[in-house]
């Protein structure tokens, strides 16, 4: 054989061996079976999009045989697209974040992850450990009627953000004590919140450093639906309330009694809505403001307090008018002591054509490492007990000081399939009551009747 041919054959043989070694190394690195390959489409709510992009990059580095395409979709579009796709079974997405309150609607189209894991033990990541998820997060963002429809992706709940510098100001404290007869502290009840809001509203107190006391949002969007629970929760979850209304179902939430009737059609519901009405004069345009506007009001120093979701912290931390943020912005429990849950799950489409890779990615994006990383890098609240108890996590953010207590006491919206319609009629009625066009008793009674009709009872 001529020498050049020998060299050629040797070269080819070496290349083949090198390729085989690389492939073996790749599989070993990924630690996943060869069927984990191809492209997966991930739909994500914008709030979690940066974290998801980051996780996708890391996943593709660890699993080079999988390509992850991340598409951020706004809340309204995301829900509609998920519902459309799971109804049609087209498999347009493989993995998607879903809001806890849409659990009942999307459940049937989602893969049962626990069952899938049992059938594919080789696809379970080491240390996946579902028992490490916070129990409430797991119950709301992981399960629907016993089926494991997702892994909790991030926690979301409402905090009371307040102007720490104003609440610590000795002059203001003295003025407040003179006017109301007690100390100016972060309000722990809505009654005290009313006094504080009045005090910080310039129309009522010309020496107030802020123009308004509190930023509330009651527009014709789902915002009003969850805001109501901040006021109804203290009644519903009080000892008397629990005795009167009965236990709270994770599926039906705090809006319902233990025997699944609307709980707000009661003196407690009326009292809750009257509390809201008492606060409206101290809030800038409460019926015309939504999430973005109220964040802006607080970030620009227009108001002294704002009940807002966890993600708002990032805006406040960077707001020019609130610097230095650690001295000017405080985080506390919602007055009345009951926030509202808004967690997000990460599910796999039952019609996905690439379920192994999708299942693997869903685990990867909710792993202990990812949970901590999402919080430290992107501020998304953790869902795992190990992360919640991590000293580095606890020290990183003032929200963490109250998060545990908030999660344990927070209220829940219904997660049943009829939720969107219940929500829409409720929001219409609530805003009409707040506008004064309907009396609270009458409005809540009508609403309860409409709900009963929608639920077919």
């Amino acid at each position, binding site marked *: 054989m001529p020498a050049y041919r020998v060299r050629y054959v040797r070269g080819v043989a070496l290349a083949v061996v090198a390729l085989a070694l690389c492939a073996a190394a790749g599989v070993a690195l990924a630690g996943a079976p060869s069927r984990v390959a191809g492209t997966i489409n991930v739909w994500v709510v914008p709030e979690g999009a940066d974290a998801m992009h980051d996780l996708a990059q890391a996943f593709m580095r660890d699993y080079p045989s999988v390509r992850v395409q991340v598409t951020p979709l706004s809340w309204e579009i995301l829900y509609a697209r998920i519902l459309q796709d799971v109804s049609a079974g087209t498999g347009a997405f493989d993995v998607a974040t879903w809001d806890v309150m849409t659990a009942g609607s999307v459940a049937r189209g989602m893969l049962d992850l626990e069952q899938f894991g049992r059938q594919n033990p080789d696809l379970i990541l080491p240390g996946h450990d579902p028992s490490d998820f916070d129990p409430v997060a797991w119950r709301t963002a992981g399960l629907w009627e016993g089926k494991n429809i997702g892994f909790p992706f991030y926690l979301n709940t409402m905090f009371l953000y307040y102007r720490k510098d104003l609440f610590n100001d000795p002059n203001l404290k003295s003025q407040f004590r003179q006017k109301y007869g007690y100390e100016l502290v972060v309000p722990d009840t809505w009654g005290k919140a009313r006094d504080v809001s009045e005090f910080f509203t310039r129309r009522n107190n010309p020496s107030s450093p802020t123009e308004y006391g509190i930023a509330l949002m*009651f527009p014709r969007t789902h915002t009003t639906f969850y805001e109501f629970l901040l006021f109804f929760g203290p009644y519903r979850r009080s000892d008397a309330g629990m005795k009167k209304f009965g236990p709270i179902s994770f599926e039906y939430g705090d809006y319902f009694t233990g025997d699944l009737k609307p709980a707000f059609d009661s003196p407690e519901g009326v009292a809750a809505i009257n509390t809201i009405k008492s606060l409206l004069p101290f809030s*800038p345009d409460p*019926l*015309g403001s*939504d999430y973005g506007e109220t964040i802006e*009001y607080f970030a620009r120093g227009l108001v002294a307090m704002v009940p807002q979701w966890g993600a708002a912290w990032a805006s406040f931390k960077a707001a020019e008018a609130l610097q230095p943020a650690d001295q000017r912005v405080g985080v506390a429990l919602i007055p009345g002591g009951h926030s509202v849950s808004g967690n997000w799950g990460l599910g796999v489409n039952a019609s996905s054509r690439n379920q192994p890779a999708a299942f693997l990615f869903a685990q990867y994006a909710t792993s202990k490492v990812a949970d901590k990383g999402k919080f430290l890098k992107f501020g998304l609240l953790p869902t795992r007990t190990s992360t919640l108890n991590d000293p580095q996590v606890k020290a990183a953010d003032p929200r963490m000081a109250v998060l545990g207590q908030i999660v344990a006491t927070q209220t829940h919206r219904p997660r049943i399939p*009829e939720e969107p319609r219940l929500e829409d009629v409720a929001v219409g009625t609530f805003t009409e009551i*707040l506008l004064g066009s309907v009396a609270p008793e009458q409005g809540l009674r009508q609403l309860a009747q409409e709900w009963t009709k929608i639920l077919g009872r």
Partner: protein
Amino acid sequence: MAGKPPASAIGLGRGSGQPTPLPEARRPGVTTTLARRQSRTAWLMVAPLVLYLAALTLYPFGYMLVMSLFRYDLASWEPPSFLGLGNYQAAFADRTAAVSWRFTAVLAAAAVSIELLLGFLLAVLILDARGERWIRSALLVPMAVPPVVAGVAWKMLFNYQYGPVNWVLSLFGVSRVSWLGDPFWAGVGIIVADVWQWTPFVFLVLYAGLQSVPDELIEAARVDGASTGQLLWQVRLPLLRPLLWVVLILRLIDVVKLFDIIYMVTFGGPGSATHSISYYIYKVGLSYGWDVGYASALSLLLLAVVSLLVNLLIRGLRLRELLGF
């Protein structure tokens, strides 16, 4: 040659210079294979377009018609069940639907009237004005802005605390208006946004109409001693009438379907104050409800109302005579 039919009627043989007899298929009462083949070819040529249109319009329309008779809610995961006219009955008992119809009617009456008036005034004022080309171009800008972008802009403009609209009003001593939180002002806000965006369309059509008025007619009227006002009311306006009615109908159809501005600016609120019927259908069918059956029934009712309105206008205004169709 005088008694001969024109060459085109008898068909001249190409280059022969001699008349060729008509093909058999064109003779009355005679059908031939060629004619059938021509007819088939014609149908084959048109078929893709017909199929395309059928797939895009007839099928969805038929589906909507059928679904309007069913209880079909995607969110509930229950299979469709026949309901007969139940969805239509529900539409008449639905409080939010009633509010939505009412707002749609108010919106149509107010916005279209203002648009017609402003569009006409602008067209008259700009006609023959110096720099009319520039003014005309500038006036068309709102129409070129996508409604969603316009909606975002108006939401910012109407912001209670930091919005430029309230700022401008404050210069005149007017206290802040809750453009998005007060039912009356939210409605006004939607009308303002629609007028801003679509007055240019009315202006454009009427301006073109004014320009097409024959100069001789204007000159003749002037010679007869007509004043500027008389020229406008007694010469130009009567000639513009057909166009005015066409614009009126087009704008009415468009306003009744108004959705995007409402979605972006008020989300139908406060309460249900700015729900247009189109917006409500979107919510029922695609956003908060996924009630395909009920949304279909509402859509068909909307279609019926719009068709009735347009037909009444066409008959009432004798548009067929005016436009010659």
